[in-house]
């Protein structure tokens, strides 16, 4: 099949989707927004979906997405009981999106300090058009990635978070994206804009989940996070959709002078997942932590594409990604570091550690360093291993059962990533999700086929 054949697959359906969306689009009267969408759609039509011949997509085949005809997801309502289960305690605000649309009834934005705006992007465009125009689409590059182009073409709803200069929001702002079961393949393109002005502080959790059964869904999210001078921002991404879900997310971070930003990704669910993290350290003395954990099982494909751009001197970046892969799952860690000529005294570090729990699990890990400055420190390292027999025996020799010992070791491996998360609220939520997930990981069971006993154990643990 030729590349162009894939690129233009279902182009009629995409055209129809785009025309329909444009008719009802938010901010139709704003010429800049209209142009942003049109240009992005034109770009998408031009290049289509990427193929594995594209270096950035070498390990991830998205032809399943290209072949599918997606329609915008229908408006859905959740029963109040359904949504209660999703609540995270002690957050500063909660925005809930059901099938990509903001649901005001399920959301809660009551107790925010002065100087903090938390709203849907739709509301944000209406109430703060100038502020939004200043940032929206200015960082996420539609030319670099067709999925970003597609998201930009369909800009409709998402979260708008703005923190004024010097304002500190300690508790995280929780953004929950739920997809419901539908009869045909559906898509959403959440678009989030998070702005922390100079010396402001913020933490945001993006949590992607499914409710009510499995159907083919594409969630293609783009988040632009702008951290002003000396701003402190933490971003958490959680993917825990069902296995029929395609999830592509792009976090584009723009950091000002001495800003301190952390990106934490936790991939637990989704059938085909691509997690793009692209920080640009644009001001002197910035610090960026890029931390992640991915747990694959069954036939999951979890791709982490890091693109860390040092564009100013004296900046530091730290990448730590841990993967645990079981069953036939396939993990990817692509860690690209670009150091611009001006970015002297850059200190960039990258570590990717992986545990393979089954013979059929696979990891592709690839560092990619492009250094144009001459006075920099860049290191990278990757490890691939199994649960260490020594450690397992050590724990067992103290009376801990093999199953429990395996679980402890996997939790410990995951904990390395969790420990780097500053928000106790986010950490507790994520720890709970990881714990639930590891319980059901296949490879945690002893290899000698005593699965019956394991099932019993799982019930006991949950109860």
């Amino acid at each position: 099949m030729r590349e162009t054949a894939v690129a233009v697959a279902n182009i009629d359906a995409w055209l129809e989707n785009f025309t329909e969306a444009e008719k009802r689009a938010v901010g139709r009267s704003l010429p800049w927004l209209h142009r942003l969408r049109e240009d992005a759609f034109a770009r998408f039509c031009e290049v289509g979906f990427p193929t594995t011949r594209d270096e950035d997509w070498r390990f991830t085949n998205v032809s399943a997405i290209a072949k599918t005809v997606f329609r915008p997801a229908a408006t859905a309502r959740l029963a109040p009981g359904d949504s209660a289960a999703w609540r995270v305690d002690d957050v500063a605000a909660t925005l809930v999106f059901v099938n990509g649309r903001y649901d005001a009834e399920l959301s809660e934005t009551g107790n925010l300090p002065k100087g903090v705006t938390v709203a849907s992007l739709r509301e944000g465009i209406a109430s703060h058009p100038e502020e939004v125009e200043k940032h929206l689409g200015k960082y996420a590059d539609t030319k670099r990635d067709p999925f970003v182009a597609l998201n930009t073409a369909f800009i409709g709803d998402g979260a708008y978070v703005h923190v004024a200069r010097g304002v500190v929001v300690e508790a995280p702002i929780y953004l929950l994206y739920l997809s419901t079961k539908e009869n045909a393949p559906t898509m959403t393109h959440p678009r989030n804009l998070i702005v922390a002005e100079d010396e402001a502080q913020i933490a945001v959790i993006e949590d992607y989940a499914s409710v009510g059964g499995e159907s083919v869904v594409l969630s293609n999210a783009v988040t632009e996070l702008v951290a002003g001078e000396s701003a402190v921002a933490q971003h958490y991404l959680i993917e825990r959709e069902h296995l029929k879900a395609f999830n592509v997310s792009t976090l584009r971070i723009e950091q000002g002078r001495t800003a301190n930003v952390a990106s934490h990704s936790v991939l637990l669910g989704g059938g085909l997942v691509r997690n793009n993290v692209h920080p640009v350290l644009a001001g002197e003395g910035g610090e960026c932590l890029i931390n992640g954990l991915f747990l694959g099982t069954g036939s999951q494909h979890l791709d982490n594409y890091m693109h860390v751009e040092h564009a100013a001197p004296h900046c530091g970046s730290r990448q730590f990604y841990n993967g645990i892969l079981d069953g036939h799952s396939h993990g990817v860690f692509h860690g690209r570091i670009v150091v611009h000529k001006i970015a002297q005294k850059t200190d960039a570090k990258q570590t990717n550690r992986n545990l393979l729990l089954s013979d059929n699990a696979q990891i592709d890990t690839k560092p990619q360093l492009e250094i144009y400055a001459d006075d920099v420190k860049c290191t990278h390292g990757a490890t691939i291993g199994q649960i260490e027999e020594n450690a397992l025996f050590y724990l067992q020799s103290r009376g801990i059962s093999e199953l429990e010992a395996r679980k402890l070791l996997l939790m410990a491996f995951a904990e390395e990533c969790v420990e780097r998360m500053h928000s106790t609220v986010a950490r507790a939520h994520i720890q709970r999700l990881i714990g639930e997930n590891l319980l059901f990981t296949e490879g945690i069971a002893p290899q000698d086929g005593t699965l019956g006993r394991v099932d019993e154990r799982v019930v006991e643990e949950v109860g």
Partner: protein
Amino acid sequence: MSLLEIENLHVSVDGNEILKGIDLTVNAGEVHSIMGPNGSGKSTLAQVLARRDAYEVTEGSITFEGRDLLEMKPEKAACEGVFLAFQYPVEIPGIGNTYFLRSALNAQRKYRGEDEMDAMDFLPMFREKLKLLEMDDKLMNRSLNEGFSGGEKKRNEILQMAVLEPKLAILDETDSGLDIDALRIVASGVNSLRNKGRAMIVVTHYQRLLNYIVPDFVHVLVDGRIVRSGGKELALELEERGYSWTEHDAPLAAGARA
């Protein structure tokens, strides 16, 4: 009934026979020392007793309190009261020392049908044991053995033994790599755990440790066989004359033992 009975134990690793017929009886309250040159099979014996499955038992039997130890998985043996202080304690990042030790203790208590200990009950007891080993409780907030010095790791092994209170403790070269101060602390920790109900097997290459932990019996292991057994004075004799002496006398020793 003896606490531990090893009869004609043959053990292979990857097809190589390491232990070639060990007989050893250990009663409650006794301290046995197993000495021998490098590669004689001392550590293999220790690991087999702790039920590491990389070792293949080709012949013979081990009974612990009358039950077949070879049928037990490591965790079961531990719950029954077998404890191995590792020659090379394993570093496990991400698992806290205190959390690990309480989990282990509770796994054993659960096995014995006792109530699990909550943090409130555990901590005072734990602090007492820390004092015994002169250990800094800051170490306990760290990950299991991670970044510990050689001496701290060995002390941590004895600390675990003090908390878990096994019936049979096997100390595998607990003295190796310790300076004299650390050796004294470890030895006094071990000595304070000696009692009528508990037996110990102290595996060592050097006689030095036995100045501090005085054994009731000394066995010399050479090339997978116990070639000589005796009282504590045997250790001194070995120190003076070296292991080669026992090798020459091997047949005599075997005869003498019989």
